Structure formats: C-alpha cells, structure tokens
C-alpha cells in the first residue's frame, strides 16, 4: 500500500467525527458539510476498501439526513459491494438501497453481485441482498433473479424464507411472468404455521388483493382458515384487509365470513384489530344489518372515547357507514355536531364531512344555518372549509337538494359577507349559474346583488371582488326586477369602485349601461306609448351601426322620416321621473368621465360606449324634461328608437349552452369540411355589408363574454336584427352549399334548445318560457310535492358534460400482473367468473374433507383442459376475459374501443411472455411448450 493512501486511512475522519463535528457547528453547518464532502470525494477514490467504505458510510449519512446527492458514488458503492467483508457489504448495500433507482446507469452491473449474495451461505448476506432487491428491483433484476428468489421461497431457514416472501411482491410487480414460477410456492407458504412466515405471506397477499381482488378468490378457503385460527393481531388485520376486498365480489363468501368477523368484533381487546373489523364490516359487509349494528355500536364507543385518535377514526368509520346507512349518523348526531368545535382541526374537518353527508333537501337549510354560524366563529382555515363544503354540497348535481332557491341565493349573499370568506370565485360562479338556470329566483337574486353592491365596505375585501362581479352582472342583466334602479346605478358607480380590478370594473360599467338603458326605456318608451315593433323591422338592413358615434347619427337621420312614434311622458314605475333621469345621466357622466383616460383598454372602451350613448340621448332627454309636454318629433323619436333597440338587445335572454352542443350537430350530407375554401374569398366579398350589420348593437354580447361563466358559453347569435335575415336568405339561396341545411330544425331535432331564440321583439318572459318548453325533456324530473313551495325549474343542459367527464375516468386496467396470477390460479381453462365461484363454494363446503385435494383441484382441472384444448385455449380464454371485463364495467363507446386496444396490447404482451418462457425453459428442467402459456408442471 502506498504512503499517501495509508496516511489517508490513518487520518480519515470517521462518521462519528462527522456527527460530532456537525453537532458543534451552530452556524456554518453548510460549510462544514461541504468540507466533509470534499474529503469524501477524495477518499472514495481510494483503493483501500476500508477507507472507501468509511467514505461511503459518511456519504450515505449526509445523503440520508442532509439531502446530498449520492449518485456520483454509485460505481464506488458497487466496488465496496464486491468486498469479501460483511461490514463493507453492509455499508454498500445501505448506500445502494438509498440511492439506486430505475434510471441509475450502473444498475445493470449489480445483478451478479446480488446473485452471488443470494446464493451465499451466510444468511445475513442473503438477507442484505434480498433487502436491497426489495428496494431497487427493476424489470431486468426481477427477471434475472427470479430463480434465486424462487429457491429461497422454500428455504429451510425461516429467516430467509420470510424475507424472500416479502421480496416476491416487488418481483411480481416488476416482472409479472415470475408469477408463473413463484406463485405456487407462495401459496404453499400460506399454510405454514410459523407466524413469521404467515405474516409475511399474508402481507403480500393483502397488497396483491388490493390491486386486483378477483384473481385471489380461489384462495379464499386458505384465508378463511387463517382468519379463524390466527392468534396474531398483525396477521388478522391483514387477512381482514383481504376479505374486505374479496367479500364484495362473492356474496357467499361474505355470508361465510360475517360471523367470524362479528366474533372478533365482540371479543378482541386490541383496538387496532377492532378498528379493522369495523372497517371491514362497514365497507364490505354493509348488507348484513346485524353486523353493521354491532360495528356502529363499537364506533359509538370510539366516538365518546377520550382518546382523540379513536374519535377521529370513529368519525371516519361513520363516514363510510353513512353512504349506505344514514341512520348510523343520525344516531350519533350530537357527538358529530359537538366535534365541529373540537380542538383538533382534523377532527373538525372529519365531522364536517360527516355533517355534509347528512344533508338532504329536507334539512339543508337548517344544517347550513348551523354551519354558517360555526363558520362565523371559526378560524379562517376551517371557516373556508365549511363554506367550501356547503357550496359543493348544495351545487351537487345542479342544485339537486335545493328546493327554495330564494333562500339559497340569500345564503350565498350571507356567506360572502363572512369576514374570512375566501370562496368568492365559487360563489360568483354559482350566483351567475343560478341566475341563468333558475328563472324564478331572479328577483331575489337582484335583491341580494343590490345588498352586496350597495355596501361600500365590501369593496375593500379583495376576496369578495369576484362575488361583487357576479352581483354587478346579475343586477344589470335582470335589472327589470330591481325595485330601485337608480339606487343600483349609484351603487355601481360609487367612487370606491376604483378599488376593483379592471376586469371587474368593466362588468360594473357594462351593468351600469344596462341599468341606464332600462331606466330610459321605462321612462320614455314603455311609459304609455306604443312602439310599433314592426317599425324596427323596417330598418334598412344596410345601416351600418358600428359603435362609433357617427353611425348612430347616421342611423337616426336616415330613419327620421318614418317615425310615427309618440313617446310617453308618464313613467310607469314611480321612482323614475325625467328629473331623476337627468340626474342619472349627469351622475354617469361624472363618474365615468375620468375613465376615458383609463390605462385599461377594456375599461376605457366600455366607458366610452356608455358615454357615447349618453351623448346621443341626453339632448333629447333634456329637451323633453324642460318641455314636459310631448311635441317633439324627428330626432326625439329616433332617440327613443335607439333606446328601444338597446333595450331589446340587452333584454335578450342568455341561455345556457351545453359544452358539447356543437358536437351534437350532425354533419350534413353535402358538407365537406376538408375542402379547399379558396373560392370562398369571392363570396365573402359580397357578404361584407350585411355581415357588418349583423353586429350592429350586438357588440354588447361580445362584451358579456368577458364574464367567463362556469359551464356556459354564450352563443353569439349574429342574427340580431331580423331585417338582415332577408338578405342572408337570399345569400343562402345563391350559395346553399356553405350553409347548414335548415339549421334551426336541425338543432331541435337534436333535442337541445337553441341558446338564443331569434325572436327579437318578444318580451323576455316569452323567451324564457320558450326555453323552458324546449328543454322540458332535460329538466329536473323530481318535483317534490310535499313542499309548500314548488321547486323552481332548473335549466339543465349538462348531461352531455357529465358523460364527457365519465368517459375521461381512467379505465381500471387489467395489468399483466393480475393476468398472470389468473393464469396460474385458474389455469388456462375457460373460466368465467361463475365457474370459479362454484369452485370456491365447493371448496368451502368440502373444507373439512382434506386440504390437499381441494388444493390441487382447480389445477388438475386446468391441466386436463390444457391437454384437451391445446393451442385454442389461449384464444378462447382471451375472449372470455374480455367478456368478463365488459360485464364488470359497461361503459361508453370510447371506453369500449380503448379496451379493445388494451386487449390487443395484452395479446401482444402474452406473445412476448411466450418468448420469456422459452428462455426459462433453458434454465428450468421442465417441459414447457413455447407457444402455449401452459402452467409449468411444478405448479400442479
């Protein structure tokens, strides 16, 4: 050995030195560590194995507790691993299990080391190697070391056998084909009487059964025996886990195990086992009323216990029971409600979940009342937890449990005023959603919105801004229900709105616009005079009325002649007088004037729109206000027309549109979507003038888009003015190819309502009625008659959406592991689930006759089958598996297709397995046909 290396090892700092050093560093710990790491980097390159291993040990320590990368030492770890000394090996294995993972480059090099140690005579070396394998095994390692693990599964040293059993789980996961080799021995270990082995085996099966319980049904008799005989609580718990997975699949099995489990429930003193029994009963044996009663009785003991752990678990168990046996919760209602004010936030949340599970349409208002009171008193986190769960519970399935929407809307308003409320966005979504869906609630909605808007204090709370945005929108959109629009306007324009983010300010301005139009309309148009709706229809289609002021003027000039309308001087609704209108206009001008210079384009543009509108109407309004007597004609009438037009534009119903509405329009025969549309240019050329007209005044609709409704899209109906349709019709005649044939009837036949009825003049109520009529088939079917107040109609369009979501749910894929297990357990016979079940029941009944016989039974059968069918059994089995799966989850078409591809993949992998098989044949002295996945003889 050379000098420096000897010096190195003599003066090398040990791990203990490092730890002591670290303890002395109050500050500068990082500096100390980096110095140590520097040393380690040097030492680990040493040729002396003890120096190297000490360095590795120090490095593992720093990696484990101080998050320092250990990967650079991967190769050095392998070098230490090759040391003959056990203490070196131990250090190396520790470092390797800490740092190696699937993408470690030197992973390939470890196989032989592991194999050597697995075959070692020193059982601790074997154990280290197994331990390491259980941590780092990848596909290659699992495949290459399967024979060694297989041999150890029946080692006569219990210590090793136990560990080999535990490793099998990882090997199976990584390399499913190993099931064919090892499964039989694993099952044999189930009958071992030694608790060490048994606990390991049962642990493995409980993990396996979690993933795919059905495959392990044939082993139920063995598990049953363990359940009845076991004296060890660890093992009993694991077996119970297995049964909680198996019992739902096989009713006869459930019937069989319910008694022993109840016995355990009654007699066990161990809380952990007791809890596992409770959990098994409430999750998997919930049809057995007496068992559930017994379990709920025990849950009650948990609930009233001093120990917070038991209380928490009791609540959790109760939540599982609640799904099927609500009485269990009602019986323990007081405890649950009391737990809402427990000192432990986890217990509080758990009891909140339970309370929410109790909610039904009968008690929703009382429970919400109680919860909102709790929320007021709670800390911010739990408060929002409460609010969030109220919101999500009440909105479930399109407000399924809400009967009294007036109440709910006012509750939403109340919730948003709770000081800690941070659920503004959800409240916003629901307010708008309800406004759109439930027509009857709109008056109340406007009232709630007004209360929110009018409170200047709320503007300072940034969490509430989104709620205010919804309130502003609702008050603008449904302003006709407002008792006092003028007050609303003041609220919308109050100075503190400057606190709002600009995106919400735009909503405020737009709503102010709507309110203003409504006021003007009420005062000048509706007030006694008859505006011939026809007169508007006569407007020449070519009038270009983009939002610029000039075009407004043009518009009025052109139409001045045929005006024959007298606008009224008596306002229908009391508060709106001409004077107040003038004040209103002044107020708007005053409030929005400064916004013309706003840096936010949206705010600026909307303010400009509104002010432009005022510019147009104000002179005439002032005029009439002064004169009081209506003798104006010409210009004045045009103004009223503008008002009328705006009002109509705004009062058009916004309907909900299903997300997948477009998809429902079937592709017409003649339509070629992929055709080159170059010649469309020419046609577009002469389409120009009408298209610009189609947007006249309709820009407001575009602006509303900015509101982002949760599930709704606003369908832009470009046919806003009927007059343009004539021109369009003409165009359609000429270029029929580019239009959907009879677009409207198409929509209806696809049974979803058009989002916007093209009726421009009809009043809003009519519109809504139509919508309701059209959606009649998709309305909520349940109308509870036992309520004094009938549940209002909730417009529902989302079935398609739900389906959409359902389809997205991940398929429970049969992975190759369970496939392999099934192959081994069921053999290659054509086993539909019923057959396997009858096998099982046979076994259960013949339990006492003799273990060996039952045990070999299915395998013997399968062997015969294999001999009979030979090759064809593979194909047939595949099909039956497919059928079985289809049985279990009848899903939508898409899913079906996916399954088929899945199956194809599976077939492919099976062929792949075949290849491995042939390789295995070389190693094992067995006759295994390469093409058929016959179970190897030693399994039978």
């Amino acid at each position, binding site marked *: 050995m050379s000098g420096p290396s000897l010096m190195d090892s003599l003066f090398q700092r040990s791990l203990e030195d490092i730890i002591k050093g670290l303890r002395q560093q109050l500050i500068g710990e990082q500096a100390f560590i980096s110095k140590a790491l520097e040393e380690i980097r040097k030492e680990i390159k040493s040729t002396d194995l003890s120096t190297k291993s000490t360095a590795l040990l120090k490095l593992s320590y720093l990696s484990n507790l101080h998050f320092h990368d250990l990967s650079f030492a991967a190769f050095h770890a392998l070098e230490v691993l090759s040391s003959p000394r056990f203490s070196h090996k131990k250090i190396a294995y520790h470092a390797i299990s800490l740092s190696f993972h699937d993408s470690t480059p030197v992973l390939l090099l470890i196989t032989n080391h592991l194999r050597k140690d697995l075959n070692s005579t020193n059982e601790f070396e074997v154990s280290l190697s197994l*331990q390491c394998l259980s*941590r780092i095994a990848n596909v290659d390692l699992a495949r290459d070391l399967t024979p060694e693990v297989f041999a150890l599964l029946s080692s006569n040293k219990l210590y090793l056998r136990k560990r080999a059993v535990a490793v099998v789980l990882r090997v199976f996961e990584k390399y499913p084909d190993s099931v064919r080799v090892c499964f039989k021995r694993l099952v044999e270990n189930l009958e071992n009487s030694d608790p060490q082995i048994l606990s390991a085996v049962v642990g493995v099966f409980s993990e396996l059964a979690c993933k795919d319980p059905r495959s392990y049904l044939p082993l139920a008799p063995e598990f049953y025996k363990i359940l009845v005989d076991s004296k060890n609580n*660890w093992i009993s718990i694991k077996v119970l886990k297995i049964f909680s997975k198996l019992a739902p699949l096989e009713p006869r099995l459930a019937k069989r195990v319910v008694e022993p489990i109840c016995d355990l429930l009654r007699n066990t003193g161990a809380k952990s086992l007791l809890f596992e029994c409770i959990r098994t009963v409430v999750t998997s044996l919930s049809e057995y009323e007496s068992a559930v009663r017994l379990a709920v009785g025990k849950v009650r003991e948990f609930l009233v216990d001093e120990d917070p752990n038991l209380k928490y678990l009791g609540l959790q168990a109760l939540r599982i029971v609640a799904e099927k046996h609500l009485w269990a919760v009602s019986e323990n209602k007081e405890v649950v409600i009391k737990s809402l004010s427990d000192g432990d936030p986890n*217990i509080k949340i758990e009891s909140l979940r339970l309370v929410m599970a109790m909610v039904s349409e009968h008690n929703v208002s009382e429970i919400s009342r109680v919860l909102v009171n709790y929320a007021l008193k709670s800390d911010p986190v739990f408060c929002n937890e409460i609010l969030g769960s109220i919101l999500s519970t009440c909105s479930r399935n399109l407000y399924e449990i809400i009967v009294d929407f007036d109440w709910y809307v006012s509750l939403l308003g109340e919730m948003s005023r709770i000081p800690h409320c941070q659920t503004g966005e959800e409240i916003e979504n629901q307010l708008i959603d309800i406004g759109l869906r439930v027509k009857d609630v709109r008056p109340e909605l406007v009232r709630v919105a007004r209360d929110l808007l009018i409170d200047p204090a709320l503007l300072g709370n940034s969490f509430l801004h989104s709620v205010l945005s919804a309130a502003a929108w609702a008050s603008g959109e449904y302003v006709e229900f407002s008792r006092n629009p003028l007050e609303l306007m003041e609220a919308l324009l109050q100075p503190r709105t400057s606190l709002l983010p600009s995106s919400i300010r735009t909503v405020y301005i737009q709503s102010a616009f709507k309110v203003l139009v409504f006021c003007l309309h009420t005062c000048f148009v509706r007030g006694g005079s008859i505006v011939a709706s026809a007169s508007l229809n006569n407007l020449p289609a070519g009038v270009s009325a983009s939002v610029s002021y000039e075009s407004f003027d043009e518009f009025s000039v052109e139409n001045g002649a045929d005006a024959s309308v007298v606008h009224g001087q008596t306002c229908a609704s009391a508060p709106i007088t001409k004077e107040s209108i003038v004040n209103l206009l002044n107020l708007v001008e005053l409030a929005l004037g400064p916004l013309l210079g706003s840096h936010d384009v949206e705010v600026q543009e909307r303010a400009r729109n509104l002010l432009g509108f005022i510019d147009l109407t104000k002179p005439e309004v002032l005029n009439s206000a002064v004169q009081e007597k209506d003798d104006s004609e010409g210009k004045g009438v045009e103004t009223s027309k503008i008002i009328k037009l705006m009002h109509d534009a705004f009062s058009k119903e916004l309907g909900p549109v299903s997300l997948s509405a477009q998809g429902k329009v079937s592709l017409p025969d003649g339509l070629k979507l992929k055709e080159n549309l170059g010649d469309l240019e020419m046609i577009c050329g002469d389409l120009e003038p009408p298209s610009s007209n189609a947007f006249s005044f309709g820009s407001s609709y575009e602006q509303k888009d900015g509101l982002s409704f949760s599930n709704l899209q606003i369908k832009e109906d470009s046919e806003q003015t009927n007059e343009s349709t004539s021109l369009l019709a003409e165009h359609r005649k000429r270029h029929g190819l580019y239009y959907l044939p009879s677009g409207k009837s198409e929509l209806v036949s696809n049974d979803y309502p058009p989002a916007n009825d093209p009726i421009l003049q009809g009043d809003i109520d009519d519109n809504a009625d139509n919508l309701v009529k059209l959606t009649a088939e998709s309305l909520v079917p349940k109308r509870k008659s036992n309520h004094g107040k009938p549940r209002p109609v909730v417009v529902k369009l989302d079935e398609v959406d739900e389906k959409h979501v359902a389809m997205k749910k991940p398929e429970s894929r049969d992975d190759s592991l369970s496939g392999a297990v099934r192959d081994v357990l069921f053999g290659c016979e054509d086993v539909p689930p019923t057959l396997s079940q009858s096998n099982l029941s046979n076994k259960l009944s013949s339990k006492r006759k003799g273990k060996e016989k039952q045990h070999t039974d299915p395998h013997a059968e399968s062997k015969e089958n294999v001999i009979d069918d030979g090759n064809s059994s593979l194909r047939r089995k595949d099909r039956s598996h497919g059928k079985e799966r289809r049985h279990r989850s009848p899903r939508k078409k898409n899913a079906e297709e996916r399954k088929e591809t899945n199956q194809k993949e599976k077939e492919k992998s099976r062929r792949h397995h075949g290849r491995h098989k042939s390789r295995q044949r070389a190693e094992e002295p067995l006759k295994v046909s390469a093409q058929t996945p016959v179970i190897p003889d030693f399994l039978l």
Partner: protein
Amino acid sequence: MGIRFILMVNKQGQTRLAQYYEWLTLEERRALEGEIVRKCLARNEQQCSFVEHRNYKIVYRRYASLFFLVGVDNEENELAILEFIHLLVETMDRHFGNVCELDIMFHLEKAHFMLEEMVMNGSVVETSKANILSPIQLMEKAS
C-alpha cells in the same frame, strides 16, 4: 404498499432518520419532509395522531424529544401503525437501553438495520423484539 416512509424528527424539525420505500428524488424528499414536519410539529398533545397530507396518511407519535412519523397509504390501519411505532421504540429501547436521540444519531446504521428487519417492501414482516434484535447482536459479537 402499506408503509411508504418512516421519519424520525426531533423537536427542532431536524430529520434524524429517513427511510423511504418508494423512490423519491432528493428534492421531493426535502419538500415532503419540510411540509410534513411543519404540519405535524404544530399539533399538540391533545390532538389526534393522524394527518392527511397529499395522498399520504401520516401517523405520528412523539417520544420525548423525538417524533416518529410514518407515511402510509389510505388502506393502512392507523392504530396498527401506532402499535408499530411503539414496537420500534421498545425494540430500540431494549437494544440501546433507555434510547434517546443521541443513540439514533450516532448509530444510524443500526437503527436502519432494525427497521430493515421489521419492514420490508413497505409491509411489516417481523414483530418479535427478540427476532428483530438477534442478527444485530450476532453481528456485534462477531465484530
């Protein structure tokens, strides 16, 4: 896989032992440990020993200045894990004699070894103190 990780953390939130049964990168581990320790150490004696975190359930218990935290998946029996923690502490106590934080600090590899005897691949394989300790005692005799 039952148990996903086992941590021992002192009152100051320093990790004294970390054992993972699934692969996490150092950064993931650092983040996870930080979050869990913050969550669990903030809780008091009167509160229950279970915390939900991400997709884990954390079962923890405090012994003197050390917190034992075990991350399990949702299927696991919390009370059994509490018993497991107690068993672990008793085993270490028997080996070190009145075990304390320093014992674990200076004999980290032994603590790891005991854990490896008790847990493999995320499931508890050995629950007898004598069985857990016998290999360690043999090795100590040998060296």
